[in-house]
């Protein structure tokens, strides 16, 4: 009686081992694939981040006040930009109406 029971248990256990091994293999393969995917994504993220950093740095350089004021000085004839000084402030009522300057009206 015990012998037949043990035989059944052994067969079931063997079956369970095979099943577990198969599942384990599948899980392991999936894990490996996912790891590779994560690594690829991280590499891509790293590359993108490096590009963003480079662009931000370039943008910061091109927008630095020193660089901009140099450009304004070089292109003064075209841009006709001036530094903001206390005399530049005016009341809204002091601003000439739109088109008045073009018509020569003070």
């Amino acid at each position, binding site marked *: 009686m015990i*012998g037949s029971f*043990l035989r059944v248990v*052994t067969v079931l*256990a063997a079956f369970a*081992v095979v099943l*577990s*091994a198969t599942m*384990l293999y599948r*899980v*392991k393969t999936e*894990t490996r694939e996912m*790891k590779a995917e*994560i*690594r690829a994504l*991280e*590499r891509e993220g*790293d*590359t993108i981040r*490096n*590009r963003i*950093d*480079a662009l*931000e*740095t*370039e*943008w*910061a*350089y091109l*927008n*630095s*006040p*020193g660089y901009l*004021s140099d450009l304004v000085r070089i292109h003064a004839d075209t841009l006709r930009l001036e*530094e*903001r*000084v*206390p005399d*530049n*402030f*005016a*009341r809204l009522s002091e601003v000439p109406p739109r088109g008045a300057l073009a018509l020569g009206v003070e």
Partner: protein
Amino acid sequence: MKPLFDPAPFEQRADDIEIEPIARVRKPYSHRLRMRIAATTFLVAFAALGWRMSAIALDHDAPKEAARSVGGVEQVKRRASLLDRNGRLLASTLQTWEVFVHPRESLGAGGVSPDDLERLGEIFPRLDLIKLRGHLNDGDRKFFWIARKASSDQWRRARDLGIIGVYAKQREDRVYPAGRVVAHIVGGVDVDNIGVAGVESGLNDRIGGPDSSGKPLRLSVDLRVQTALRNTLSAAKSEFAAPGAAGLVMKVRTGEMLAMVSLPDFDPNNRPVAPKTFDEQARSPIFNKVTQGAFELGSIFKLLTTAMALESGAANLETPLDATRPIRRGGFTISDYLGKGRWMSVREMVKFSSNIAAVRVAELVGPERQKTYFEKFGIGGKVPLVGVPNGELSRAQLPRQWGSSESATVSYGHGISVSPLHLATALASLANDGCKVTPTLLKVDESDLPAECDRIVSSDTSEKIRGLMRLVAEKSSGRNANIPGYEIGGKTGTAYQVKPSGGYNTDKRFNSFAALWPTSDPEYLMFISLDDPKLLDGTRRLPLAGHTAAPTAGSALERIAPLLGMVPRDRFRETVSVEKQQDDEG
């Protein structure tokens, strides 16, 4: 009758049982033993299987592993970026490549074609092609640098040429897009990307330490104000043929440094090597005059002398002082430049910047109280500047013995050496309704400031000092800095420079100007210093601070106040900042 089939084929009939001797029943490999072996084997197998499965299921190490290495390359924690108070980038870390060639390896593989060499030259414009061609033809060297700092794009293009023997090593570089403008604020890093000076060193742990979050760090600096101050100081340095200049702009309520400039400066992207001797250090561009310098700053100290007299009750603004003739203290004669030669009040002492009258005030206060008040004002040791390492802060050089003659000279800013930061912080505290100000290079949220005031003088004394500063800017030596509409207050300071051998060099001066605006409700304090300025305008005037540092401060103010959104009062009823106005309307 014999049955056709055995009714119980698996049952052993009693008569079939053969009784064996006991010795034969006990076999060497019994049924029970086999069972045990099988059970143990399965147990071990299942345990191993279970352990492995749970290890895979839990997989605790996986995220760490992923974070540690990407593509087999060890990832180093990147230093956090530095931003100015408005979010403009001041420092960032870029991935770069060191590209090199092994000429012998290239030669062994058949050499490099002229076309490939030409393309390399196009990718790396600074590459010395003649030298490289020589090494590649001769194979005389094992190693040759193609580029020490190449971008990812440059390395990708070079790699795609497929030249045998060309390799690259990844590295990270700290880049400062604003360059010289923020030199002394950011400081710089060494070859291992560890901060060596300025904020990079003072806040190294927060920027790149093991506990750093990697998030950008926002500083108190306003890049626009910093640039304007540097440009103005640079122009003044040329105009007055000064070998050096320094300046700062501080927010009075929070102690935030909006700008800090020391000239000559350097490019933090290519930081010079630190000089070894003390004399060289003081002349080096990496020396920060604002924090590391210790200078006799002259008559600006009269404001501190007045504050202690008012606060201690030793005098009031109308107390009469004898300034009729020069006085002798400790073997020296103390006199006034363009003295009035009469009795004057404390108010007039500040207005006319009388040294003799300042000595009289110091006599009323007394050396002991004077020393105590200096310590209270932060002029006793080092002024902590948040963000800057302690080693970059100078200690105030006080008289060794604080007798009556020392007390006399200290009252008008001689015989005492401090950094511009010392004096600016003390004045900011006096102006801040008498509440102590701690200077910082980190952006401060005003709601995080302590509600309680760490008072160094009363509100009343603060108001009187601000009134005196306004008087100087309106009617005395500070007129050149009095930009209409901003309610500027100020004080000039002219001091002879101390000779290395001792005594004063009467040909060399150190001129300073402290500006505060608007004096009725102070928002900003500016401090300007010029090292040995000369007046080259053909006049025979002496290069006093009123003719050099004050107009420099005026030029800077004219540029900086509008940048900070401040509208001049003469054009409008009240001086209000545009930002404030928008907030109120919003």
